[in-house]
């Protein structure tokens, strides 16, 4: 039998001006072929799990193995399915499959001027294991074909775009302990790497604020080097600040950067979890707790984080232990729990649906 969706009424129906709801990508544990997509709709207040499998029953093996990112551009949703080596493109309104774009070991997405950019861990074969350098591929959003490719650093992760420059955080995650430390700057006109900015080890997340400041997170090495957050000025392409905040994941809305950190220490096996909001204008931490009603205690491993630009609701996901079924939390802008529901396996990435 095909995998069918199931729904929960999670909130009272509301009618928003700009956003009708969101898609949520559940990553799914590696080897389980368990990536799945859920959907929330404001005007019904209904949260529906595993909508992609049901809307596309004829696709063999459903969505695939390990979802890594989901974003909406125009009328299409793009989702990178990491281990399955492709970007899934489907229709925002119907959830129906449009195209599968082959990009091996694809990681994150970003968009600019009708083009999608996908970072990838894949690299040209080298003699030494894990000496391969990753790339960013450009996909035309009309033809849905890969148009160009640029080699960047080792195991590139998230990207931001400022004018004609694309910044990508290189992690070097396959090269433990010889992590990459750089952000590659790619000129989108020539599609060539024009610069490498040395930032810190094992870079991952990237956000850009309204002033053009770029925030890059470093995962640290899980031993001695703590996770950290750096600021790059996109005008000068220089690291201008090291904020000494541990960041595992973050999102920016207006002048607020919402973040959390799960800091894993290999020698003790301990995870410490922290949350916070940073003012991007002053670079000062406004608060060190996002969730004010104590429900953060229920979240075993915070994973996805997103803020609805219209309602300012804060969304968090709980990945549990990455194996069991996770949860999705919706908080009011003041940090009070509005609703909570079960997601799929490792609920992680949000894409808000514009009306």
């Amino acid at each position, binding site marked *: *039998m*095909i*995998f*069918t969706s199931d729904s929960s009424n999670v909130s009272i129906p509301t009618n928003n001006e700009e956003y009708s709801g969101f898609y949520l990508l559940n990553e799914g*544990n*590696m*080897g*389980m*072929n368990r990536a799945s997509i859920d959907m929330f709709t404001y005007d019904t207040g209904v949260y529906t799990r*595993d909508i992609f499998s049901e809307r596309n*029953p*004829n*696709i*063999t*093996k*459903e*969505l*695939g*193995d390990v979802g890594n990112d989901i974003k909406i551009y125009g009328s299409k949703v793009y989702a990178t399915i990491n*281990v*399955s*080596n*492709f970007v899934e493109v489907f229709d925002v309104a119907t959830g129906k499959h449009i195209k*599968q774009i*082959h*990009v*091996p*070991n694809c990681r994150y997405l970003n968009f600019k001027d009708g083009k999608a950019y996908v970072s990838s*861990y*894949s*690299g*040209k*074969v080298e003699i*030494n*294991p*894990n*000496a*391969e350098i990753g790339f960013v*591929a450009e996909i035309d959003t009309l033809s849905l074909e890969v148009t160009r*490719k640029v080699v960047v650093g080792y195991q590139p992760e998230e990207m931001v775009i400022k004018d004609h420059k694309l910044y990508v955080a290189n992690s070097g995650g*396959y*090269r*433990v*302990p010889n992590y990459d430390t750089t952000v590659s700057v790619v000129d989108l006109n020539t599609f060539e790497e024009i610069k490498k900015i040395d930032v810190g080890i094992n870079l991952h997340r990237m956000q850009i604020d309204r002033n053009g400041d770029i925030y890059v997170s470093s995962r640290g090495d899980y031993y001695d080097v703590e996770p950290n957050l750096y600021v790059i000025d996109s005008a000068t392409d220089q690291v201008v600040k090291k904020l000494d905040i541990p960041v595992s994941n973050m999102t920016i809305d207006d002048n607020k950067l919402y973040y959390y950190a799960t800091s894993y220490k*290999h020698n*003790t096996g301990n*995870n410490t979890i922290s949350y916070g909001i940073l003012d991007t204008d002053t670079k000062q931490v406004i608060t060190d707790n996002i969730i004010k009603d104590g429900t953060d*205690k229920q*979240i*075993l491993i915070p994973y996805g984080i997103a803020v609805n630009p219209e309602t300012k609701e804060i969304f968090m996901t709980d990945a*549990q*232990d990455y*194996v*069991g*079924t*996770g*949860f999705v939390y919706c908080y009011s802008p003041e940090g009070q729990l509005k609703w909570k529901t*079960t997601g*799929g*396996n490792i609920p992680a990435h949000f894409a808000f649906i514009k009306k």
Partner: protein
Amino acid sequence: MKLKFCLLSIAFLWVGKVTLFAQTQKDSITTLNEIVIQKEVFKDLIPVQTLSGEALERLNSHSVADALRYFSGVKIKDYGGMGGLKTIDVRNMGTHHVGVFYNGIQIGNAQNGIVDLGKFSLDNVEAIKLYNGQRSTIFQSAKEYASASTVYIQTKKPVFTEGKDVNLSAKYKAGSIQLTNPSIRTEYKINDNVSTTISAEYMHSNGRYKFRQKRHNLNGTVAYDTVGHRLNSDIDAYRIENSWYGKDDKNTWSANLYYYQSDRGLPEAVIKKSDVTLETENINERQIDKNFMGQAEWTRYVSDRYQFLLKAKFAYDLMNYTSRKTVDFQGEEVTYNPQFDNTFYQQDWYISAAHLYKISPIWEVSLSTDLQYNKLNATRKGQGTLFSYPERYTFMTAFATSVDLGKVKAQGNILGTFTNEKVRHNFKAPNRSVWAPSLFVSYKPWNEHNLNIHAFYKYIFRLPTFNDLYYTQLGTSNLRPEISRQFNLGINYNKALNHSFVKEFRVSVESYYANITDKIIASPTSSMMRWMMTNLGKVENYGIESAVGTTLNILPDLDLGINLTYEYTSSKDKSLTLYGKPSYYGDQIPYAPWHSGSSIVELNYKDWGLNYSFIYVGKRYNGNKNNIKRNEIQPWYTHDISLQKSFKWKDYKFKAIVEANNLANQYYEVVTNFPMPGRNFRFTLSIDL
């Protein structure tokens, strides 16, 4: 203890060739004709499940793992194909709680604690036995007390007919999935007291078989239906073994040299892949194994009151793992996975001494002490992290006693384990010292009826493996040992009838409660070499295992043997995380079915033998743990059939076997995304000179 010629078991073999769940008070490993291997008579307080001799041969089984599926309480995790990993789990306590003994000495794997039973072909195997708890004798090494369940693999011992000093036999097996499997065995009688055997085997399979992925829409129409081919599961394996056996009136000894080498593809999880990947990928994920074991044991009967047993072993294992998967992207060959070229070298040194002293005819005591040294070295290309190079010294001592009051028999022991670890790099695990007791009791109310009631309690633990502790990205050296407690209560009855129709009849029921605390779970990710560590915390199991069997004499030359097992298990995950209850708290643990069973039916007519076997594994949930529809795995069942015929030409004895496996051609998975072969066939021809 007196040596005893086990002539009785001739009758046993003849009566019930399948001695599954055999309630053998006597060990029935051996015997054909008049020559005989001497075995002490075990005082088995709890029943042992045995598959041996002909029964083993005609079961549609290729490896030890295949045969173990017929034992109740056993679940085999099978990743499919000829080269796929096959591990055993008994009563859902986990692979690490099963001790596997090869000719009486444990097969170790200090690296990951997992014995791949698919590596052990049945070619040279005489008997396989499974004991819940432990073998209930007190004259054994300390190691034999140290697992929650124990599997014994006994290789064939030489048997010579009158006037013959040399036996030679050869076997050729061929089958589906391009299986080629020739083997040869010779036995030499050096003198009346000493004999030796050499056994060698080669196995090849290209591992390529069809599997089917199919789903239906809610209205019953087909949503998709595709046929795939299992790739990268080829294998080439060689085995050569030399064994020596000796005995006189005071001593028995044996020595084994074993070498196994294999080169195999590691089949990955069947997941969705982009079309271009399917067309252009080049999977190169392989494992090479080289295993050497040298072991010996010597039992000396010093007096009627005292005897001792010495065992020693050295094992050296080399394992090379390479992984590089590439695919085309925009006209260029690119890699798409983390890459490995790792070689691991393990050493296992072991020595054991056990003493048995008979205080009175009804009371015996024993003391066993074992010393073991394990070392793991590695070379890992392109990896900059420091390998730990762990070493472990383990000292074990067991004190045991048994009393035999006629109707009531009891055994008790306490096992002390002391470890000392060393590492060259990274964090060292703390030294451990743990005491673990167990107690076995059996009661036979009537002398004239073979009815036994038995019970045991066993507390045991397993140490974290080197991978658990030191695997660079996953291991954590502060892991605690994993503890199991097992209570068992059972009853068994068997009767040999002189009745012309029903020759014999057996029934047994076992019930148990077992809990595992501080459980360390390692499950493979998309690559079998990358183990995902989860500390489950706690699992509570209870279950019932039942078995019935009979042999019917339908016509003068026509015997029908029937064996049925059914098992119910409940295995609840009661673990907590540091932050609270996970969403799957209280759910049945992954891959543990509530209902399972098997049947073996055999028909013997003169030189002909027909065997039908059936295995059923009910609904269960996959590694995503939550007992929700999305994680459900369909029940699977296989029908296997084999036909064999023996014939003689001059002095040569021939035997031909035809096997058809998975007759219904069911496409099933034991482990999610690791499809098993559909219908397949094997042919075997063997010659005895």
